[in-house]
C-alpha cells in the first residue's frame, strides 16, 4: 500500500546518526561543507516526520528490527506522540542549526556539529523507541553529547557547569539502569509493551521501587525541582545555540520519558497527584528564582524550569484534555524558548555582557532581535495572539473540567506563577526599549567572571553590527510559527488529541505492539 512502505520511521534515527559520524569525512572535502550537514539532516527528519504524521494518527507504525516479531526484538513505536516529538525536535534543530551557520565560528567546529547532531539523534531515538534498554542507550547519547556541548567553549564557567552536570547526570543514568535491571529481573523482558502488559501481576511494592528510580533518573535530566541544580549553570554558560536546544528539547525528553514510564509502562494513575505537586513546586521555584536574576541567560534558564513544572502539572491532570494541553505547552515552550535564546545570542555578542542592565537601549540598536525577544516573551507569558495563549488556556480549561476544588486551588497557584513570569519578562522588555536614554548607569557588580564573557564576544566584527541575515531567518520563521499557531490552534488539534489518547490508552498501545 502506502507511504509507510517506503518511508520507514527508522530513517529518523539512522540518517542523522550516519550524518553525525560522516561529518569529519565531509571535512576532508571542504571545511566549509561541514556546517551545512546538520541543517540538511534535520530538514530530512522534519520532512519525514511530517509525511508520517497523518499515517500515525490513523494507526501507529511498529517497526521490528532483525526480523523477529515484538517482544523478541528491539522495536520502534512511531505513534502520534513519537512523531509529534520528532517533528518538533527536527524543526527546532533545523532552525537552530541555520542560526549556528554564522554564530559558531570559533573552537572545534566539526566537533560541535557532530555533537549537535548526535544530541538530536539521541532525542529522536528516545521518543521513538519501544524498548526500555534502547531508551536508556539513546538517553545516554543525548546526555553525553550535552555534557560535551555545555563545556564546548572550554572556558571557566562552561567547564565547571559541564563537570557538575556530568556528575549529577551520571548518577541519574545509574538510577535508570538499576530500575531497568529490577524490571528485567521481574518480567524477563525489556519490551515496554510486554512489561506494561504484565505490570499488575506482581505486588505493588515491587514495581514501586523501579518507578521511583525512573522518576528520579529522568527527573535529573528533566530538571524537576529538587533535582534541578545543574540546569541554570549549564544553560547559561553554554553557547546560545546550545542553550536553545538544551532548553527547547533536551529537558523535555526527560519529561517525555517520565510520562511514558508513568502512563504507559506502569499505568500508575495514583502517582499523578504526586506529579502535579512536583510540577507546582517546580513551577514556583523556577519562576521565583528567575525573578531575582540579573543575568539574562540565567533568567531564561530558570524560566525553563518553571515551564517544565507547568508541563508536568498539565500532564499530571491525567485527563485526555489535560495531557493534550501539556503536549501543547511543550510545543509552545520549544518554540518560544528557543526564539528567546536565539534572540539573546547576538545581543550578548553586541554588548559583551549577560547582565540585564547592560542591555539598555538595545531595542533601538537591534530592533529585529528585540522584537523577536518580545514576541517570545509574550508567547511564554500567554498573551493572546501568540501560541502561549491557547496552550495556557487549554490547561486552565482542562482543570475546570475536572470539577475538583483542590485543582481549582492548584490552577490559582499556576496563574500566580504566570504573573511572576510576566513581571520578570516585562522588566527585561522595559530595559530593552524604555531605558538607556539616561546617561551612564552605575556599573552593576559583574557576577559572571570576565573571562567567560570575553571568550564569547571575542570576534569583534559581530560586536559592531546586529544579527546577520542568516541568524534572522530562523528567528523570523519561529515568530511566524508562534503567531500562526497562536491564531489557529486547531491546526494541531488532531495530532494532540491522538497523542493524548496514545498516552492514556495503555491497552491499545500493548495490543498495537504485540499483535
Amino acid at each position, binding site marked *: 500500500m502506502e507511504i509507510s512502505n517506503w518511508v520507514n520511521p527508522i530513517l529518523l534515527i539512522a540518517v542523522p546518526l550516519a550524518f553525525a559520524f560522516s561529518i569529519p569525512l565531509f571535512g576532508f572535502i571542504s571545511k566549509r561543507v561541514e556546517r551545512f550537514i546538520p541543517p540538511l539532516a534535520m530538514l530530512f527528519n522534519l520532512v519525514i516526520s511530517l509525511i508520517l504524521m497523518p499515517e500515525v494518527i490513523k494507526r501507529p507504525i511498529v517497526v521490528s528490527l532483525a526480523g523477529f516479531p515484538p517482544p523478541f526484538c528491539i522495536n520502534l513505536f512511531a505513534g502520534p506522540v513519537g512523531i509529534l516529538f520528532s517533528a518538533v525536535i527536527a524543526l527546532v534543530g533545523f532552525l537552530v542549526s541555520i542560526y549556528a551557520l554564522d554564530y559558531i565560528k570559533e573552537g572545534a567546529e566539526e566537533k560541535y556539529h557532530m555533537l549537535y547532531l548526535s544530541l538530536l539523534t539521541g532525542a529522536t531515538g528516545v521518543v521513538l523507541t519501544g524498548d526500555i534498554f534502547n531508551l536508556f542507550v539513546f538517553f545516554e547519547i543525548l546526555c553525553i553529547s550535552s555534557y560535551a556541548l555545555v563545556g564546548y567553549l572550554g572556558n571557566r564557567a562552561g*567547564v*565547571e*557547569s559541564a*563537570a*557538575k552536570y556530568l556528575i549529577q547526570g551520571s548518577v541519574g543514568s*545509574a538510577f535508570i539502569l*538499576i530500575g*531497568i535491571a529490577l524490571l528485567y529481573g521481574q518480567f524477563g523482558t525489556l519490551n515496554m509493551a510486554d512489561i506494561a502488559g504484565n505490570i499488575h501481576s506482581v505486588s505493588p511494592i515491587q514495581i514501586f521501587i523501579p518507578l521511583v528510580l525512573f522518576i528520579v533518573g529522568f527527573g535529573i535530566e528533566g530538571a524537576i525541582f529538587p533535582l534541578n541544580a545543574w540546569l541554570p549553570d549549564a544553560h547559561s554558560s553554554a553557547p546560545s545555540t546550545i542553550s536553545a536546544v538544551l532548553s527547547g528539547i533536551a529537558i523535555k525528553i526527560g519529561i517525555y520519558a517520565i510520562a511514558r514510564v508513568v502512563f504507559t509502562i506502569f499505568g500508575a494513575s495514583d502517582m499523578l497527584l504526586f506529579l502535579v505537586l512536583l510540577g507546582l513546586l517546580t513551577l514556583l521555584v523556577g519562576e521565583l528564582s528567575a525573578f531575582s536574576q540579573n543575568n539574562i541567560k540565567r533568567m531564561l534558564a530558570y524560566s525553563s524550569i518553571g515551564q517544565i513544572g507547568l508541563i508536568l502539572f498539565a500532564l499530571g491532570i491525567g485527563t485526555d484534555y489535560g495531557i493534550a494541553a501539556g503536549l501543547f505547552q511543550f510545543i509552545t515552550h520549544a518554540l518560544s524558548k528557543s526564539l528567546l535564546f536565539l534572540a539573546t545570542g547576538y545581543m550578548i555578542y553586541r554588548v559583551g555582557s549577560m547582565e540585564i542592565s547592560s542591555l539598555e537601549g538595545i531595542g533601538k540598536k537591534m530592533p529585529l532581535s528585540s522584537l523577536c525577544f518580545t514576541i517570545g516573551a509574550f508567547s511564554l507569558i500567554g498573551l493572546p495572539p501568540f501560541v502561549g495563549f491557547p496552550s495556557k488556556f487549554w490547561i486552565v480549561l482542562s482543570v475546570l473540567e475536572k470539577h475538583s476544588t483542590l485543582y481549582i486551588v492548584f490552577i490559582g497557584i499556576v496563574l500566580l506563577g504566570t504573573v511572576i513570569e510576566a513581571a520578570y519578562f516585562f522588566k527585561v522588555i522595559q530595559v530593552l526599549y524604555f531605558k538607556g536614554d539616561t546617561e551612564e548607569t552605575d556599573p552593576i557588580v559583574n557576577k559572571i567572571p570576565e573571562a567567560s564573557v570575553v571568550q564569547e564576544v571575542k570576534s569583534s566584527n559581530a560586536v559592531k553590527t546586529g544579527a546577520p541575515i542568516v541568524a534572522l531567518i530562523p528567528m523570523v520563521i519561529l515568530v511566524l510559527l508562534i503567531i500562526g499557531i497562536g491564531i489557529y490552534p486547531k491546526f494541531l488539534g488532531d495530532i494532540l488529541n491522538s497523542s493524548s489518547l496514545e498516552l492514556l490508552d495503555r491497552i491499545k498501545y500493548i495490543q498495537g505492539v504485540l499483535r
Partner: protein
Amino acid sequence: MSFLADYIYYIGAFGLILIGLYILLTKHNLIKMIIGICVLDTGVNLLLVSLGYIKDGTAPIFSKPGLASENMVDPTVQALVLTAIVIGVAVMAMALSLAIRLYQHYGTLDMRKIKEQRW
C-alpha cells in the same frame, strides 16, 4: 547461611552501588567523585549480570550435544552489560577530560572551591 550464599551477588552489587553513592556524597575532590561514579557503574553492571547468572551455567551456545537450555546463563543481560560498560567508559573519558580542563582553569580539583556558578 544459605540466604547469604543465594544472594551474595545481589548483596555485593547493592553494596557497591551504596559505596559509590557514599563517595559521591561525601568526597569533594573531583577525581574521587569520578571514582565514585565508576564504583556505582560497576555495582549496576554486577547487578545486571547476576540477574542472569546460574550456578555452573554455560554460555548459551549449543556446542556440545546434550546441553540443556536450563543450564545456560541469560545472554540478554550480558549484552546489556557490554553496552553499559561502553557507555560508562565514554562518560568516564568525558569526566576525566573535563577534570583536566578544570584543573587548568582553577588550579584545584576541590569542588568546594570551584563555585563561581550559583544561584
